[in-house]
C-alpha cells in the first residue's frame, strides 16, 4: 500500500508533545535502518501517528528515490497473511516483504492474541532488521501494554526506540488550527482559534472536527466571536483553570530533554557515517561463528586492517566454506567413532588441514562393515514362478531403497539363491548410489563375532557407529541371532536406526521370521513389518533356464538334453549346479561332448532296483506319463501320494 502523499513533515505541526517523536522520525527518514530500528511511535488516536509514519515514508523516498517503502495497517497485514496461507503462497509473501527497504506498520495494538500473526511478524522483523531494513510501527499504546503478545516479539518491538505522541499543547493546537484554516481557506475572527485551542481535546482529529463545526456554523450565522465558540460547540464555559499559563512551563520542561535527545541524534548521525559496512559484516560473521564455538582469529586479524582489504568478501566466504568442511569432517569422523567429534580441531578453520589428516587417520583405522560380494550379479539371477515374489520385491527395493518394502525379509531353503539375491541387491544399491552409498552386507555370524569383539575391546560405540554409517544393511542367515540376547538387542537398535532413517534393510533366513526359534518378539514383529518373501525350490521353467545357461558354458547345447535335465527335480539351485558339474566331469572323462546319452548313462545308473523311492517313481513316470502336462514329479509330495493311491 502506498503512503498518503499528504503526509509530510512540512505539514506536521511540531509541539512539545511530539517533538521527540518528530526528531526520531526525521532521523529515521534521513538514514533508514541506521538509527532507531525499529522505531515505535505510540499515542492516543487522532494525534498524528499515521501522518508521522507517512511522513517518514515520503521523506525517505524523496531522499532516496528507488527505496521501496511499504505502508500498511496491521489489519491489512494480517489479512494478507491469511490470504497467502489460503492459497499456499506464504513463501511468496515472505519474499515480498523480505525485500522491502522500509516497512511502516500502523495500528500494532491489533496484535493482541493473534499468535500466528505474531510469529510471522517476528520472523519478518528479524529478517528485515538483520539486513538493516527500517521498520516503523505505531500503536495507540506502548508495546508493553498491548495485551497477549509474545514476550520475544515485545522485546523486539521495543528494541529500537519507543517514542510517544502526546496531546498537543495550546500553542501546538493554535498552530494546527491555523494551518488547517489556511488549507481550507476559511478565516475566523481574531481570538476564535485561540479560544478553540484552549478547549480540552484528546486528539487532533477532534480538534479538526470542532473547527469544521465552527466553519459550518459560520456559513450560517456569519463570523463567530470568541465568546460564541464554547456555545457553538456545546461546551460549558469553564472556570479560569485552563488558562495558557501552564504551557510555557511545559515548554521549558520539554526543552532540556530535547538537548540530550538532539545530542543523541547528532551522535547517531556521526556514528552512522563512521561505521564501516565491511567491518560490520566481518564483525557479524565473527560474532556468529564465535557464538557457534568456532575460532575466528583469522577474521579478527582481518578486522584489524585499517581499510577494507580488497579480498575481504572472499575471506568471509572462504571462512564459511572452511567451517562447512570442518562440519563435514566432523560428521564423517563421528560415523566411525562418536567420541572423536567435538574435538578442538573441528573448531578452528585455520587448522582444517590438520583436521582433515586427523579424520583420514581415524577413517583408515576403521574398517567399514563388509559390503556385498561383487560376484553376485542381479542379472545372473533368473526369475521364475518359484522365486518371482522375492525377485520382484528385490527389484522394488533396488528401485526405491527404504521406500517400498522395509525390511525385506527373504526366506527359503538353502541353495535357493538367497545369498545371491541378497548380495545382488547390495551390489545394485551400491551402484545406484554411484559409490557414495555404503552398503553393509554381512552374515549374521560375522555380525555376532564383531559384536563380541567390540564388547571385548570396549568399543561398542564404535561398532554401532560403523553400522549406522551405512546407507543400507543386508544381513544374511539372520536365523543365527536366535537365542543370542545381546546380539538381538544390538540388532534391535541398529534395525530401529535404519528403519526410522528410511534406510533399506534386507534380511535373509532359511525360514520365515515366525519359524525362527528363539527370536525375540520385538525383532520378529519388526522383521515381519515389511515384506516376507519366500524362495522355493526351482520349478521346471527355472531349471530349464538354469541348465541352458550353465551348459552353455561347456559348449554347444543339445535342446533335448536340456529338456531331459529340466524334467528332473532338484531341491535347490546348488543341487542343480552339482548336476552340471557331474555331467561335465562325465563328459570330460569320456573325451566327448556332452550328449543326452551320456547324461542318461550318468544320471540313471543301471540298477534301478537300488534306487530310492523317488527314482523309482521317476522311472515309472517315464513309462506311464509321457505327456509333459502329467509329469508327476511336478506334484508336491509325489511319493506319499502314490503310496496313498496304491492303497
Amino acid at each position, binding site marked *: 500500500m502506498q503512503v498518503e502523499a499528504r503526509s509530510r513533515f512540512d505539514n506536521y505541526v511540531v509541539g512539545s508533545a511530539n517533538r521527540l517523536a518528530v526528531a526520531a522520525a526525521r532521523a529515521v527518514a534521513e538514514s533508514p535502518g*541506521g*538509527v*532507531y*530500528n525499529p522505531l515505535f511511535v505510540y499515542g492516543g488516536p487522532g494525534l498524528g501517528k499515521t501522518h508521522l509514519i507517512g511522513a517518514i515514508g515520503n521523506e525517505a523516498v524523496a531522499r532516496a528515490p528507488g527505496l521501496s517503502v511499504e505502508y500498511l495497517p496491521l489489519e491489512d497485514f494480517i489479512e494478507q497473511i491469511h490470504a497467502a496461507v489460503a492459497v499456499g503462497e506464504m513463501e511468496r509473501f515472505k519474499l515480498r516483504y523480505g525485500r522491502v527497504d522500509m516497512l511502516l506498520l500502523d495500528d500494532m495494538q491489533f496484535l493482541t492474541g493473534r499468535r500466528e500473526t505474531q510469529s510471522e511478524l517476528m520472523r519478518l522483523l528479524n529478517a528485515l532488521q538483520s539486513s*538493516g531494513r527500517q521498520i516503523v510501527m505505531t500503536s495507540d499504546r506502548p508495546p508493553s501494554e498491548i495485551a497477549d503478545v509474545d514476550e520475544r516479539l515485545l522485546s523486539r518491538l521495543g*528494541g*529500537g*526506540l519507543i517514542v510517544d505522541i502526546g496531546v498537543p499543547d495550546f500553542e501546538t493546537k493554535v498552530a494546527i488550527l491555523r494551518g488547517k484554516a489556511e488549507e481550507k481557506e476559511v478565516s475566523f475572527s481574531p481570538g476564535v482559534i485561540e479560544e478553540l485551542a484552549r478547549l480540552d481535546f484528546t486528539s487532533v482529529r477532534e480538534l479538526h472536527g470542532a473547527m469544521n463545526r465552527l466553519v459550518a456554523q459560520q456559513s450560517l450565522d456569519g463570523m463567530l466571536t470568541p465568546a460564541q465558540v464554547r456555545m457553538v460547540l456545546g461546551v460549558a464555559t469553564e472556570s479560569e483553570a485552563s488558562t495558557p499559563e501552564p504551557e510555557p512551563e511545559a515548554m521549558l520542561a520539554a526543552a*532540556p*530533554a530535547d*538537548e*540530550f*535527545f*538532539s*545530542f*543523541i541524534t*547528532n*551522535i*547517531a548521525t*556521526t*556514528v*552512522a557515517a*563512521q*561505521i*564501516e559496512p565491511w*567491518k*560490520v559484516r*566481518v*564483525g*557479524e560473521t*565473527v*560474532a556468529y561463528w*564465535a557464538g557457534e564455538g568456532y575460532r*575466528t582469529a583469522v577474521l*579478527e586479524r582481518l*578486522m584489524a586492517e*585499517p*581499510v577494507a582489504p580488497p579480498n575481504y568478501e572472499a575471506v568471509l566466504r572462504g571462512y564459511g566454506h572452511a567451517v562447512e568442511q570442518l562440519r563435514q569432517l566432523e560428521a564423517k569422523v563421528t560415523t566411525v567413532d562418536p567420541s572423536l567429534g567435538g574435538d578442538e580441531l573441528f573448531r578452528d578453520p585455520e587448522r582444517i588441514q590438520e583436521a582433515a589428516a586427523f579424520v583420514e587417520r581415524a577413517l583408515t583405522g576403521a574398517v567399514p562393515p563388509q559390503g556385498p560380494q561383487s560376484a553376485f550379479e542381479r542379472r545372473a539371477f533368473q526369475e521364475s514362478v518359484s522365486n518371482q515374489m522375492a525377485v520382484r520385491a528385490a527389484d522394488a527395493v533396488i528401485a526405491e531403497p527404504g521406500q517400498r518394502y522395509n525390511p525385506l525379509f527373504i526366506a527359503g531353503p538353502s541353495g535357493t539363491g538367497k545369498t545371491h539375491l541378497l548380495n545382488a541387491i547390495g551390489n545394485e544399491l551400491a551402484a545406484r548410489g554411484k559409490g557414495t552409498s555404503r552398503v553393509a552386507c554381512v552374515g549374521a555370524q560375522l555380525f555376532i563375532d564383531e559384536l563380541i569383539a567390540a564388547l571385548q575391546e570396549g568399543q561398542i560405540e564404535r561398532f554401532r557407529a560403523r553400522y549406522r554409517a551405512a546407507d543400507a544393511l543386508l544381513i544374511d542367515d539372520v536365523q543365527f541371532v536366535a537365542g543370542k540376547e545381546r546380539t538381538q538387542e544390538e540388532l534391535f537398535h541398529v534395525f530401529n536406526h535404519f528403519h526410522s532413517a528410511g534406510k533399506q534393510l534386507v534380511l535373509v533366513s532359511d525360514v520365515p521370521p515366525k519359524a525362527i526359534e528363539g527370536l525375540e518378539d520385538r525383532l520378529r514383529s519388526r522383521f515381519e513389518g515389511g515384506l516376507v518373501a519366500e524362495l522355493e525350490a526351482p520349478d521346471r521353467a527355472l531349471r530349464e533356464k538354469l541348465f541352458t545357461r550353465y551348459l552353455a558354458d561347456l559348449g554347444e547345447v543339445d535342446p533335448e538334453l536340456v529338456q531331459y535335465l529340466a524334467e528332473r527335480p532338484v531341491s535347490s539351485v546348488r543341487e542343480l549346479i552339482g548336476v552340471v558339474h557331474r555331467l561335465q566331469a562325465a563328459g570330460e572323462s569320456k573325451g566327448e561332448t556332452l550328449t543326452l546319452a551320456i547324461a542318461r548313462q550318468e544320471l540313471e545308473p543301471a540298477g534301478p532296483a537300488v534306487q530310492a523311492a523317488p527314482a523309482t517313481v521317476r522311472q515309472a513316470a517315464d513309462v506311464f506319463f509321457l505327456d509333459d502336462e502329467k509329469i508327476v514329479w511336478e506334484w508336491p509330495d509325489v511319493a506319499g501320494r502314490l503310496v496313498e493311491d496304491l492303497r
Partner: protein
Amino acid sequence: MSLVNYATREITCKIVYYGPGRSGKTSNLHYIYGQVPDDRKGKMVSLATQTDRTLFFDFLPLDLGTISGFTTKFQLYTVPGQVYYQTTRKLVLQGADGVVFVADSQARQLDENIESFQDLHANLSEQGIDPRAMPLVVQYNKQDLPKELILPVADLSDAINFRNVPEFSADALHGPGVFETLRGISEIVLRRLSAASPTPAAAGSR
C-alpha cells in the same frame, strides 16, 4: 585503542574532563546528568568532599542506546584539578578516547589554566600517548561572569589553544555550551573510528 567492537557491536567512548581546580568540570557533568531523561539515567558517581571539591574523580555513564545497531555507551570522567592529585589524574587519563579541557575564564586563573594544560600534555606523554594524537577540545567556562572578571575568548584562545583545536565558550552551571562541547569532542572521537586516518586534531596541529 579500539572504540568500536564490531564483534560485540559495542561502541564505548571514554571522555575525560580535564582542567584546573574549580574550573567547572564537575558542573559540566552535573548539567549533562540533569538533562538525561529519567529512563536512561545511570548513576552518577561523584567522590566529592564536603566542600564540593572533587577529591578523586566523577564518573558519569551515559547509555545512548542502540545506534546503527551498536550499543553505544559514553563514559564521562572528571579529574581532580588540584595540583596534589597528580596520581589520580594519571589514572583517570588511562584509556581515554578524548579529552575536554575545561578552562576557567577568570582573568586571575589564567596561569592555572596554562599550568593545567601543560600538566595534561605531560601526563599523556608519560603514558606514552602522543598528546597531539589525542582528540581534544577546549571549553572556556564561566563566560557568564561579569566582563571585568573574565578574559574574552579570543585572549584565552591565544593563551591556551595553541594547538588550534575546536573551542567552546560555556556556562556549565546553567547549561549553555555544555552539550556543544560534549558534541564537539564526541564527533572528533567518533571520527577517529576510521582507525588509521589521523585525527582532525592531529592534522590541525603544527
